[in-house]
């Protein structure tokens, strides 16, 4: 117990220590906290969700979109865990923990966003099994609650058990550890699939109501997630002594290309399927792509996102560009933003336009909403920075129990 | 040669003149009769057109629009089956 406490203390105190650029980064992120606090107070305490841009016509919007997108980011940890443990891809040795830290952060952020999406977060306990009513298995939302919390727990166990064993210099209990690793690999696929089911089981929203949705969700997630991991790895490599081989980054950028290609193919087949017969079911997609009846707020967003995705795909196909580590993070960041627009903004919102009664309206996020979203992301990045920093410390052997210092134990 | 052709045409015209006359008369007769019928119809309808049209457009318009919209009207069997379902599956749970 004492060891565990000292591990936690050491882990986080290492995570909070750093050079001046590290503090500058955290300082920049903390600048978002004030408007976030203001927005949160307005929405949670003073006035309710009316401060955001929601309407009865567009009742799911950017909070839900960020939720959907971040579930994908969380699921993407599997793209490093899977090759490392299943294919024994050793170059990913130092990457796995970063991936798991990203997954933990993303799930936490998912939960943060969903609390903002709820009208009555104070009644969250109604959803708790036994003391509340947990309408499982009828409501897909309850499935999502299970898979997301399960994934969080699995990742916490895998990552922190591994790190704790490194910290104390003890060997891993392979059976115990690998069981959780394999479960978490399968689980990662379920979280995004179930989130897709959450939307595509709504028969009344034609844009979501097709069976490609879970596939497309996974494909975009496995492009956006590794893109973020690449950026994180390059930053870590630049700023710490942690060894991250080029092969690891190359593997990840290949994963990005492959899944981005699949995502674009699925997008194409969706567009053709909807637009050629041009039934009323295509209205949502048409609104997103071309605008309808003079309403076209979504058009620049969706085209930006598609062009960024196509452009990144073409660029990343070229090995020379993929291996250029000055261009690669730029492409990765823009791709990440492009997929965020597609899933986090365009998909959720245009799916609600028109309403089931054929009413067209548009969505305008309010400043308070933007404050909250930016603040949530800043909090997420802050958590990720600290967790990743701590993990790097563990991997470097800087975070280590005094008794274990100097010991060498073989680890995964 | 041109004279020959002309005379031939004339000859044909003369040859078939009787039959042509009957034909013309018949067609003319039918035309006149049907014209009269149509005229009668039109004339007899004139005083009422305003009101009839108004009535038609007011009363039947929605019917027409509904047909264009093609909302599916339930068949008698369908309705009976549905009502039967409502009745038989009703259960009161306090």
């Amino acid at each position, binding site marked *: 117990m004492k060891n565990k406490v000292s591990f936690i203390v050491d882990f986080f105190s290492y995570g909070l220590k750093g050079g*001046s650029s590290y*503090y*500058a980064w955290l*300082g920049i992120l*903390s*600048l978002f906290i*004030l*408007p976030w*606090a*203001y927005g949160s*107070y*307005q929405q949670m305490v*003073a*006035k309710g969700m009316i401060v955001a*841009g*929601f*309407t*009865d*016509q*567009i009742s799911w919007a950017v909070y839900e979109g960020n939720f959907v997108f971040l579930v994908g980011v969380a699921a993407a940890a599997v793209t490093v865990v899977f090759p490392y443990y299943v294919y024994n891809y050793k170059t990913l040795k130092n990457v796995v923990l970063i991936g798991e830290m990203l997954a933990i952060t993303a799930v936490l952020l998912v939960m943060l966003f969903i609390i903002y999406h709820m009208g009555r977060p104070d009644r969250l306990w109604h959803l708790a099994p036994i003391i509340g009513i947990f309408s499982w298995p009828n409501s897909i939302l309850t499935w999502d609650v299970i898979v997301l919390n399960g994934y969080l727990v699995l990742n916490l166990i895998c990552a922190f058990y591994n790190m704790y064993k490194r910290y104390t210099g003890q060997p891993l209990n392979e059976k115990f550890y690998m069981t959780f690793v394999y479960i978490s690999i399968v689980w990662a696929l379920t979280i995004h699939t179930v989130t897709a089911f959450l939307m595509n089981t709504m028969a009344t929203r034609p844009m979501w109501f097709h069976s490609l949705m879970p596939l497309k969700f996974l494909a975009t997630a496995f492009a956006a997630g590794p893109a973020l991991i690449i950026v994180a790895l390059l930053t870590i490599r630049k700023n710490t002594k942690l060894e991250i081989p080029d092969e690891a980054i190359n593997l990840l950028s290949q994963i990005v290309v492959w899944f981005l290609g699949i995502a674009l193919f699925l997008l194409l087949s969706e567009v053709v399927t909807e637009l050629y017969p041009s*039934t*009323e079911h295509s209205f949502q997609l048409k609104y997103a792509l071309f605008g*309808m*009846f*003079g*309403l076209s707020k979504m058009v620049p967003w969706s085209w930006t996102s598609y062009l960024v995705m196509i452009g990144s795909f073409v660029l990343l196909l070229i090995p020379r560009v993929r291996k250029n580590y000055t261009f690669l993070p730029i492409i990765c960041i823009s791709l990440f933003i492009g997929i965020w627009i597609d899933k986090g903004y365009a998909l959720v919102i245009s799916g609600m336009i028109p309403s089931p009664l054929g009413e*067209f*309206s*548009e*969505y*305008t996020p309010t400043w308070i909403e933007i404050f909250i979203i930016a603040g949530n992301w800043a909090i997420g990045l802050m958590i990720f920075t600290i967790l990743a920093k701590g993990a790097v410390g563990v991997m470097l052997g800087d975070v280590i129990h005094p008794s274990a210092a100097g010991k060498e134990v073989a680890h995964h | 040669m041109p004279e020959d052709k002309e005379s031939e045409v004339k000859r044909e015209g003369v040859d078939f003149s009787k039959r042509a006359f009957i034909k013309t008369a018949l067609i003319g007769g039918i035309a006149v009769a049907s014209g009269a019928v149509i005229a009668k119809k039109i004339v007899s309808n004139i*005083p*009422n057109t305003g*009101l*009839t049209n*108004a*009535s038609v457009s*007011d*009363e039947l318009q929605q019917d027409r*629009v*509904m*047909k*264009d*919209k*093609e*909302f*599916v*009207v339930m068949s008698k069997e369908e309705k009976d089956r549905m009502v039967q379902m409502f009745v038989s599956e009703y259960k009161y749970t306090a």
Partner: protein
Amino acid sequence: MKIKKITKVTFGALVAGTVIFGIGHFQTQAQQEQPAQQAAATATVTECFESREGYTARSRVENVVPEYGYPNIKCSQTTGGVLWWGDPYDDTIPMGDMPDIDDITKGDYLTEDAVIKPREPQLNYFNMDPDKHCVMCHDGKAVPFPKDKKPRMITMHQDIVEDSMELMHGEGAIWCLDCHNATNRNTLIDHRGKEISFNQPQKLCGKCHGVEYRHWRMGIHGKRIGSWIAGGKKRWWVCTECHNPHTVQTNRFQPLKPEPAPALPKGMKNADHESVHAPSAAGHGEATPAAMH
């Protein structure tokens, strides 16, 4: 050194933010109070019509059910129509007898608890004697009876019946005295010479419009308020409460001013995009892959 600087900047930002936050909060509170004042300022309409403008004007009476402080009716502030009935039977009388109809449904169970809003008290033209009204003039002496029922123009009574000059009903085949009783103008009359009260015009209308009358009797045509329970007490609307018998041929219902449109969704400035719609029509529709018949 840098850390100190960053801390200073962050602290400064915190203070500034708190100030902005405070100002914003109070401003928004002030904004909230405005609409409530506006709502209180609107005048209250206390008289409104039920179905047909100009036919039944009803006054709002407060505290019909004192326990709840109900008015008997609530009036629309924008169109002058009744929007809500507190007491559905207020001001009504029993329907009285109704002849049986040979319908396949069982019996005529509804008539027992049927009430209507009487029309007769509203016939107050020259209302010096409560029993007279129309008979004041149409007593056979002051105004002579027409000898036949041949349709002809009359110039009388445009003050009571605005459309008396352009009778649409029957497309010129009938005229005033086919419905109005020549000898007792306070009543209506059917084709067999039976006197019919203005309270019960359906007894006259039903003579020609049999299908509508039967459907009305069944409760699937026309309007009723009160109890939905079969056999429960209901106030029935009679024919003339909805239809203007003089112009029914062109206007089944008299056009009304509609209640205001719903508020536009947040962020929308107008509904112009709706008029851009190429109105679809023959679109198959979600529900509707097949044809109507």
